């Protein structure tokens, strides 16, 4: 009797195990088949961008399917407990496998459907296309039959520190490559496929616990990680042959920097600023007017450092003038006043044209011909050859803007983890309790508001030179082109309030999506509205949860969280990207 029961008790899990293993093998087979299918031709004509007609050589969207298929294969192998692959999934393979399989399926089916729709019918598909569609469905079907093997990560094996540093460097190199690939996508279909693949793959790496391990490493070697992030970000222009995508990168940097400044105001101090882009405009107009352009009403030409200071100071003054009367009040007044200020700024500079008002800004025509910067004879408007690689003029601005962003990152992290930063968060959490703890609410809020305004103004001074023309319509509340106040706020909320990497990622996404998917134009705002609603429903803390929100979800391992958690690991990756 007893032996009988033990036997059945033993055979049941064994059965279950063999069943699970069968599905793992099936996933593996599906992953391999998907990978192989990218070497077939998917369509007859080269009318579909990317040339998917060649046998034996994946091109365009096939490359993305290839990557997703390879990752699926790799994780299926890890799920089969192949020696040497366990490090891929410290917290379990199943969920990662499901996400990767979905990514492969999504990319493949998107491609196949896009071919059929754009070229007018299924007849345009080669058998290879059907093979890919079927092959990519196999791992999904199999992976969802797998038992959940989510587990707590074991203590990682001790590696020599040179190896750990090498991992960090490799991770940032991969990050740079992935982001560069995204910025360099030539056509909308490729970008969509890229978003699908990258989205699922990154989510899978998070689920597998690989990202957590990486972030543990970056906190261990903080200064090296920061340096690696900086180098990766600075390396971007060196990967570009033309200025086309560098301009996109510069604009992303401007957008991200301003979003990060807004995050001080919104994320830390909890002040809803709906007219933040106006401070960017104040900085840009100030810089443009003192830049020596013939269109300026002032016949002066400040050196760049002086115009940066002027722009910052003028923005600061505006910030104080707007903030001082409204920050004494509670709640929504600030939102209304800042919204009003944003519009007043835009309309006022539109009217200072010599007709409706004094001639200062040329009204709707703006201030054109802002000259390029010149530092000690180094002309930003010209190409330079550095280390044998020719850098276009936007590369100069890219590097300058990168410095500006590093400044803002530094301000954010230092202010955030100090007495004043704690006071901001306390005010945000409970203003009554904060004042009862001795915090002068008005003063502290005004500092946050004015600091935010100043940082935006600084970014504006660079923006004026990058765009070389400053017009009022660049500083609207909501419009199709970021940065505008609504998009800035969306970048902060989407990315994660109170974090550094959050707004950087949010800004990158919010800039790239409209820039790459031009056909969305009309539906863009609708799309973002829906996306934000979904986000608020399913991930209210944003893509990147800040340390406090993280604590909420990972109550047990919170003692591992270092004190300077405000700069979490994601920052490097984003910096590299942005």
């Amino acid at each position, binding site marked *: 009797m007893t032996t009988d029961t033990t036997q059945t008790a033993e055979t049941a899990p064994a059965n279950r195990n063999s069943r699970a293993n069968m599905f793992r093998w099936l996933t593996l087979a599906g992953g391999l088949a998907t990978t192989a299918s990218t070497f077939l031709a998917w369509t007859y004509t080269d009318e579909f961008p990317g040339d998917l007609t060649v046998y034996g050589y994946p091109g365009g969207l096939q490359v993305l399917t290839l990557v997703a298929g390879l990752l699926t294969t790799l994780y299926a192998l890890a799920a089969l407990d192949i020696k040497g692959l366990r490090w891929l999934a410290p917290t379990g393979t199943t969920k990662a496998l499901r996400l990767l399989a979905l990514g492969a399926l999504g990319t493949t089916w998107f491609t196949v459907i896009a071919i059929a729709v754009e070229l007018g019918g299924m007849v345009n598909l080669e058998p290879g296309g059907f093979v890919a569609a079927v092959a990519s469905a196999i791992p999904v079907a199999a992976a969802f039959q797998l038992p959940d093997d989510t587990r707590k990560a074991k203590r990682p094996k001790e590696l020599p520190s040179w190896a750990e540093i090498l991992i960090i460097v490799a991770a940032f190199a991969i990050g740079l490559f992935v982001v560069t690939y995204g910025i360099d996508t030539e056509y909308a279909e490729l970008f969509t496929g890229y978003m699908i693949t990258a989205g699922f793959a990154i989510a899978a790496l998070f689920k597998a616990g690989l990202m957590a391990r990486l972030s543990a490493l970056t906190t261990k070697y903080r200064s090296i990680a920061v340096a690696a992030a900086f180098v990766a970000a600075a390396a971007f222009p060196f990967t570009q042959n033309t200025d086309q995508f560098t301009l996109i990168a510069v604009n992303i940097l401007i957008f991200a920097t301003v979003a990060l400044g807004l995050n001080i105001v919104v994320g830390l101090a909890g002040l809803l600023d709906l007219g933040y882009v106006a401070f960017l405009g104040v900085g840009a107009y100030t810089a443009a007017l003192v830049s020596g352009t013939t269109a300026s009403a002032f016949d002066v030409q400040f050196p760049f450092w002086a115009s940066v200071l002027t722009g910052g100071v003028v923005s600061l003054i505006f910030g104080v003038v707007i903030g001082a009367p409204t920050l004494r009040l509670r709640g929504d007044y600030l939102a209304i006043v800042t919204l009003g200020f944003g519009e007043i700024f835009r309309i006022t500079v539109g009217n200072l044209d010599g007709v409706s008002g004094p001639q200062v800004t040329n009204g709707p025509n703006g201030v054109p011909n802002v000259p390029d910067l010149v530092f000690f004879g180094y002309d930003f408007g010209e190409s330079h050859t550095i280390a044998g690689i020719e850098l276009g003029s936007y590369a100069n601005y890219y590097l300058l803007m990168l410095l500006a962003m590093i400044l803002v990152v*530094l*301000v954010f992290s*230092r*202010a955030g983890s*100090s*007495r*004043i*930063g*704690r*006071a901001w*968060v*306390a005010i945000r*959490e*409970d203003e*009554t*309790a*904060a*004042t*009862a*703890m*001795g*915090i*002068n*609410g008005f003063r502290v809020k005004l*500092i946050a508001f004015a*600091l935010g305004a100043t940082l935006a103004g600084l970014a504006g001074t660079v923006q004026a030179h990058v765009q070389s023309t400053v017009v009022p319509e660049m500083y609207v509340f909501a419009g199709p082109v970021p940065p505008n106040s609504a998009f800035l706020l969306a970048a902060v909320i989407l990315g994660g309030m109170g974090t550094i990497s959050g707004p950087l990622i949010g800004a990158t996404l919010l800039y790239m999506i409209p820039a790459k998917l031009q056909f969305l134009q009309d539906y863009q705002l609708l799309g973002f509205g829906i996306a934000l609603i979904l986000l608020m429903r399913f991930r209210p803390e944003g893509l990147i949860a800040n340390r*406090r*929100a993280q*604590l*909420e979800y990972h*109550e047990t391992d*919170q*003692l591992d*969280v270092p004190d300077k958690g405000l700069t979490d690991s994601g920052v490097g990756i984003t910096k590299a990207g942005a």
Partner: protein
Amino acid sequence: MNDMTTTTENTVENTTETPAVLDASGVTMRFGGLTAVRSVDLKVHAGEIVGLIGPNGAGKTTFFNCLTGLYVPTEGKVSYKGTVLPPKPHLVTQAGIARTFQNIRLFANMTVLENVLVGRHTRTKEGLWSALLRGPGFKKAEAASHKRAMELLEFIGLEHKADHLARNLPYGEQRKLEIARALASDPGLLLLDEPTAGMNPQETRVTEELIFAIRDQGIAVLVIEHDMRFIFNLCDRVACLVQGEKLVEGTPSVVQGDERVVAAYLGTPFEGAPGAEEAAEVEAAEEAQGTTSKTSTTSTTSPEGETP
């Protein structure tokens, strides 16, 4: 010579009667037609634990809010160690009065340690510039704040939870953390608004000892509480507030024995009060109508919680 005399006079004055830590005189708070606090005088001396009791809605919390500047009292003035306090919460805390709240008001999404560090705000100076430049002075001040905060957490026994979010603490520990946060501002007077509300008897005893320990550090304590055993155990002096007015003040035994206090809590039968039979009848009728029954004669119930 003249100078000499004045100094001696001053010292004489100081030794004979030190100014009370807290001296509230004639504090009145009106909300429109409602007088929540009516010309209340109260003194708290150094080294004292004073209790403030009274039925729900008596105005105890409102009185606290007047003391700490959350409300500007309609009349009356509050002075701390001889100086009149401006009705601004942060200045009151700066002067040396710290408080806790009846319905816990921690910074829920900050860690336990950060909560206490926020309490240090008035006792540190580092502004934005020093935070950005991070000179040696900043690091020193920050380290000192951390050290003091950890000491306070050890004092209340929460040092092992320094990195937890305040919201995730159990109720009793949240109350204690609020006390630690208040103590972080190095106060001379601590105001506690129902520090044991919602605690079990054992936690209440621990809190009692905690308050004694705070007093032994030379901090005067003014405490609101409904738990009579707790209050009469703890306090050197007790004042009873009823409908905004101070009814009695004295040693616990005096207040405990005072008939008016008992009446204020339990209600006095008045003439023509309905008999038990009639009351039951009314109750049954009201229940049938689905309304909540209120047969108590003098009970003054107020909405739950405070509204500072």
